[in-house]
């Protein structure tokens, strides 16, 4: 099917040619055939003529969880990818948050196969260690050859410093990308929220910022010794930004990400003990959120993630201590980030990061594969369950005021539209 986008304002700071210009875009067989001020639709062509239509290259999420296999009640790969497409994301990195975890090439192949035929492309992460148990390295090379883009024991701190050293050394000859979750588990103890004024008032066990910063410091020291390619996923404190900034100045090959909810909300939200706000790392303070946002716009934080983590209601509709960690993030990602940043910066950030995983950044030009997100950046609204596409409904953004909505995505010679 041919697609004709009418009068779409192009946001593409990377390619000055069309940036901020209104153009018609004709797509044939999944390829951008023409970009011009006015194109007439001829023959069998789907014309997309939406109010305040904006278009950018497809958005990228550096970490989502879908549950399948093992936690299909939370989310399946098929519906997870449909949710991603409806939320504007054409490429998502899949966290190894399944049961069993993907710790071998067979599991990686399964995930790749399960994701075929969708608008949104999926790139799985394998676990760093066998069973994600943090003890023995998994077959990283074999998984990489099967399509794993990184290695991560999902949200499990690596307690063994020597394992981090070995992993960073071992993965170098095949450019393996190693994650280390930033938390010292002994310092964190049984903490479940940020340690601070709010946790003190609520009697909830706190995780000191120290737990995160200590682990990051350790990992950066190890990286300085070993070399290799390290990623610190989902940092949450102001001091973490500083530690990584200093490391980058020293030339260390380290990247980091931040979850959008850690930019958008703080631990003040916990006042009512609502378990939708229970996430790992925890929501921190206003000054942390401010420093994280600055780190993101300055480029110290390499990219964002929705940290999309569906949880069925049985895991959430319980006492705060007993509730699972995690929030949905895909559906609210654009609306939340667009509240915090101007639209050009917002799109720049939503399209950053692919190269760190060895993936090509799409190009919005005649003759290139059409990998596009269609959106309206100006609409402000209250985010409700109606806007959720996920199987689970655990979004901490419910009832928040968000700005900007997604019309759809075009990728892999397919189209996903929200209406």
């Amino acid at each position, binding site marked *: 099917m041919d697609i004709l986008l009418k009068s779409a304002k192009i946001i593409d700071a990377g390619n000055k040619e069309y940036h901020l210009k209104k153009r018609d875009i004709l797509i044939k067989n999944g390829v951008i055939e023409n970009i011009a001020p006015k194109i007439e639709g001829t023959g069998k062509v789907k014309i997309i003529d939406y109010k305040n239509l904006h278009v950018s290259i497809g958005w990228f999420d550096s970490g989502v969880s879908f549950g399948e296999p093992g936690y299909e009640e939370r989310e399946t790969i098929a519906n997870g990818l449909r949710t991603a497409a409806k939320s504007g994301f054409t490429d998502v990195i899949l966290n190894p948050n399944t049961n069993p975890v993907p710790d071998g090439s067979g599991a990686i192949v399964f995930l790749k196969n399960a994701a075929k035929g969708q608008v949104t492309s999926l790139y799985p992460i394998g676990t760093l260690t066998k069973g994600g148990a943090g003890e023995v390295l998994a077959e990283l090379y074999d998984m990489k050859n099967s399509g794993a883009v990184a290695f991560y024991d999902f949200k499990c701190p690596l307690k063994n410093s020597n394992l981090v050293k070995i992993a960073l050394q071992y993965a170098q000859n095949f450019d393996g990308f190693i994650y280390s979750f930033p938390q010292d588990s002994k310092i964190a103890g049984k903490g479940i929220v940020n*340690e*601070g*004024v709010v946790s*003190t008032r609520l*009697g*909830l066990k706190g995780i000191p910022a120290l737990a995160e910063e200590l682990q990051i410091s350790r990992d950066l020291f190890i990286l300085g010794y070993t070399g290799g390619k390290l990623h610190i996923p989902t940092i949450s404190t102001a001091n973490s930004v500083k530690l990584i900034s200093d490391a980058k100045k020293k030339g260390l090959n380290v990247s980091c990400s931040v979850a959008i909810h850690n930019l958008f909300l703080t631990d003040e939200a916990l006042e009512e*003990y609502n378990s939708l706000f229970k996430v790992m790392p925890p929501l921190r303070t206003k000054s942390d959120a401010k420093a994280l946002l600055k780190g993101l716009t300055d480029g110290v934080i390499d990219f964002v993630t929705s940290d999309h983590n569906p949880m069925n209601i049985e895991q959430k509709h319980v*006492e*705060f*201590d007993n509730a699972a960690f995690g929030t949905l993030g895909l559906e609210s990602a654009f609306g939340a980030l667009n509240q915090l940043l101007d639209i050009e910066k917002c799109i720049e950030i939503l399209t950053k990061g692919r190269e760190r995983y060895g993936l090509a950044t799409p190009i919005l030009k005649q003759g290139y594969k059409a990998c596009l997100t269609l959106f309206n950046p100006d609409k402000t609204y209250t985010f409700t369950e109606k806007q959720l596409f996920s199987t689970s409904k655990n979004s901490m953004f419910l009832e928040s005021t968000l700005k900007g909505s997604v019309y759809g995505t075009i990728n892999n010679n397919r189209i996903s539209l929200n209406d």
Partner: protein
Amino acid sequence: MSELSVKHLLGIKYLNKKDIQLIFETADHFKEVINRSIKKVPSLRDITIANIFFENSTRTKLSFELAEKRLSADVINFSAGQSSVKKGETLIDTVNNILSMKVDMVVMRHPNPGAGIFLSKHVKAAIVNAGDGAHEHPTQALLDSYSIRERLGDVGGKNVVIVGDILHSRVALSNIFALKLQGANVKVCGPKTLLPKYIESLGVGVETDLRKALNWCDVANMLRIQNERLDISYFPTTREYTQQFGVNKAMLDGLDKEIVIMHPGPINRGVEITSDVADSKQSIILNQVENGVAIRMAVIYLLASKIK
């Protein structure tokens, strides 16, 4: 007639100063009642109360039950040990099952902070928090303030030190909220490992020298070392804790003034306080227990009148 500003008693932090005054005035009346030869009033003959305890308790449960019975309420008791909770039933299901039997009020103790608040949003009954994890134990704080008021005339302007494990203590947190609300000056005292790092954000002072703290205060509320809550070692031995934070008679006698000694119980004699301190005339520990019944009668009576 005045009434409480809240439908539930979930924590002191949800009350205002007038609420506390009203509870105290009501408790004055009930204290007089429980010292009569007929210790019972017919006020709550049409009310059924479930005491739901997901955590062990002896004195709090007894005190609530006695308070309820002296108000002539129908009372049922439920402990997690005997229940379907162990079979995997959720809190909301457990409580809704009990409420289906036409129960009007739930008194709940639960190991998780905020459990009462969570429950109050999802079930139709007045909830009284009888202790939720390390969050609050509001009736304890009310009876503590009531006992200070009884002994010293007023709570406002008094210097109160809370000694011991502040980190794991709902009694400490509720007492801090209650005392601050009534205009008392509050300090906490204990090893740094048992003081929350951000405790000063609640408007309290921190003192790690027990002698200095005792010299400063009018009232010392000695908390029990809750060994069952200490998942790691916060101090080397109980012996060493006592050397630094235990109160003995010689220490009290060495002070310039006669301070009041309180303890929420149960006491570890020889740990937080020695026997001669516990049994001295400066100690109001047993008055606290007696006042506990009057305070709980007042709270239940006032909340029940909002149901009606």
